[in-house]
């Protein structure tokens, strides 16, 4: 079912079964998304504006830029961890 539709028609709460947690495409997508998002947040792209690529320090103070970059590093870490889990799932499927 769609994730958006399940907001309006919520299914009962439940824990995910191990077979659902070992979903290869889901883990791979999350890994790619986390690494991509982390790289984007670590670049200066979220803060620059216009053709001159100037940073408005009132809108984006230094503490904010550092926090966003920190979140970016965490996301890259999460992506790498999930990529490791992708390897584990593939290994389990091939050799066990």
């Amino acid at each position: 079912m769609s994730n958006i539709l399940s907001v309006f028609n919520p299914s009962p709460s439940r824990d995910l079964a191990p077979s659902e947690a070992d979903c290869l495409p889901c883990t791979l997508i999350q890994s790619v998304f986390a690494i991509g998002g982390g790289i984007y947040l670590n670049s200066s792209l979220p803060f620059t504006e216009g053709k001159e690529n100037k940073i408005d320090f009132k809108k984006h103070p230094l503490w904010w830029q550092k926090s966003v970059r920190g979140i970016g590093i965490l996301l890259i870490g999460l992506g790498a961890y999930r990529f490791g889990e992708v390897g584990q799932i593939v290994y389990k499927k091939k050799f066990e």
Partner: protein
Amino acid sequence: MSADHTRDPCPIVILNDFGGAFSMGVIGGCVWHGIKGFRNSPYGERGYGAISAIKARAPVVGGNFGVWGGLFSTFDCSVKAVRKREDAWNAVIAGFFTGGALAIRGGWRHTRNSAITCACLLGVFEGVGMMMQRFMAQPTMAPQYPDQPLTA
């Protein structure tokens, strides 16, 4: 707890949500900008004004909706995978991240306000959805058994 095999894997659900949100945005954008273009055009040019407003703006609205839907679905799947649980909090957390991520270029105040607003809105939607489900559910009635014959 057994696995739910009726669900598609996350990448397909994300694509599905992106497409659904895009279509919804395009349809809504056609209605909205059609009326707006019609009203803002001079007499005699109203039909043409409505069509050109739809052509110019409806795909943009669709794109905005699509980005929101795709991002929300991606965050929802990610939160579900990290928490290993499916409940109402997933949507609220995903809404918080979606609102924040979409507003990040607007500065820290904009990001904070947008994330909190989006999370609250989704929390309200979830609550209303649950309330409606309870309201629409059939009341459980005790089974009616025939009277037992009297024994001597």
